């Protein structure tokens, strides 16, 4: 088989980016909820940072919780997004059309 298994188009395409963003947003929301609960179960947000110069986000607990939640959401989403990016933009596996005995054709 001399046929090229795939054609390289020269630019990186990310099919169905919109749907993928939704797939990323929802699980990272769940993970961020759990992470926020566990994290602030142990850590009081007003104790975060240097005592003498507390960051403005951690001066009250409610803002602390909220900032923490959105931070976790962002981090979890970034990780999922990167995973999906690597999966979606990988070169496709060569088509399994090759041999008669069902084994995959060599690349």
């Amino acid at each position, binding site marked *: 088989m001399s046929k090229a298994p795939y054609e390289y188009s020269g630019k990186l395409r990310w099919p169905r980016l919109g749907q993928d963003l939704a797939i990323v947003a929802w699980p990272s929301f769940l993970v961020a909820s759990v992470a926020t609960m566990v994290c602030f179960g*142990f850590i009081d947000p007003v104790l975060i940072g240097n005592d003498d110069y507390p960051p403005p986000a951690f001066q009250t607990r409610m803002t602390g919780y909220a900032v923490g939640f959105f931070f976790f959401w962002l981090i979890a989403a970034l990780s999922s997004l990167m995973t999906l990016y690597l999966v979606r933009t990988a070169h496709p596996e060569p088509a399994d059309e090759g041999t008669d005995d069902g084994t995959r054709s060599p690349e």
Partner: protein
Amino acid sequence: MSEVQAPVGGELYAARQKIYPREIKGRFQRLRVYAVFALLGLYYVLPWLRWGERQAVLFDLPARKFHIFALTLWPQDFYFLTWLLIIAALALFFFTALAGRLFCGYACPQTVWTETFVWIERWVEGSRTQQIKLAKAPLSGAKVLRKGTKYFLWFAFALWTGFTFVGYFTPITELAGKMASFSTGPWETFWVLFYGGATYVNAGFMREQVCKYMCPYARFQSAMFDKDTLIITYDEKRGEPRGARKKGTDHKAANLGDCVDCTVCVQVCPTGIDIRKGLQYECIACAACIDACDEVMEKVGYPKGLIRYDTQHGLEGQPKQVVRPRTIVYASLIVVLIAGFAYTITHRNVVAIDVIRDRNALFRELPGGLIENVYNVKILNKDDEEHEFSISADGLPGLQIDYGEDEVEVGPGEVQSVAVRLRVPRGQLQGGSDIHFTIRTRDERALEATGKARFLAPTN
């Protein structure tokens, strides 16, 4: 009725067609109604209950205290939540192994709120056929009015849901006043709208799509099935070949099975599947098709149970084994964990100590050959009544303690910080040594707690 069926095969991302579940009555639907009333009743009523001076159930995030009736939980009690989650997970395993997606069909918030939204829809727009007709009808004043009424009722119900949700975290009577005068704070406004909006979209529009595309449990629940799990199933041997028949004909002679192919089981399905094709991952086990088919079987005079709860073994004509090692092990684990949980939470230590070394100086050398270390001792009183505490320290010979007064009063649910000075004659130690602080109440209950700290001294 092909219009209710989800597209089979073809495009992966075919546009969703709205499902209009037909109303059905029956024993399982009655159970579901009870479940909706019990669960939603609990949800909407709980934050209004009082316990003495305070709201009975209040998760006070700004104060980092969770009040649940007589119980007040502190961040230190966090492990109780972990314990609860383990019990919940085991219960999910147990019920799934026992009878499949019982949780989805009867208890999942998505199902429960969707049910209420469907009721509102039916109340305003009428039966399934009327709803389909209305959707197809050209735009008119009457249509706008009906649809508008539905959306308004949904909106009001969702807003009330969001308000109740926030009422678990901030005193609900105050919140009600603020809502009435449009003076809620930014976080309250945000979360009322967020939770209300999520309810509106999930129960009004997303519905079964949440189960199909968003729910992780729906994907892995089948791993907990075995051949003795009760599932909702169509008795193919009895039903096929299906087909319409005239009343009074001997269908067996006409080579027909018991299924009269009325498609009512498909019309009542909230996820739009045909149970006769076998158990599918979309099935949320609401048992609407069982009730629907039983009603039809009764009408045509055949025995009930063409669609029923059965096990795979049962369908193959083998004995059913609902009580089996797997379910017994899960059940006993749950009982043990719940008993342990109940014991620990009622016998937990209601006093706690937290020791922080003074950060300004490692140690101080006093005249008279003494080394002094200063600590900030925090005493937590998680009890409902005030206690007087004495503080002691041990771990080094000749250790002297000084905290100003004889005893420290700490009110119910309060934390008291005490500056404590420890002194040791020089030469008793070099470098550092571990010591222990103990607090003890002065009443007959003698509650106590111990905290570890480090005493530092010069190395020479």
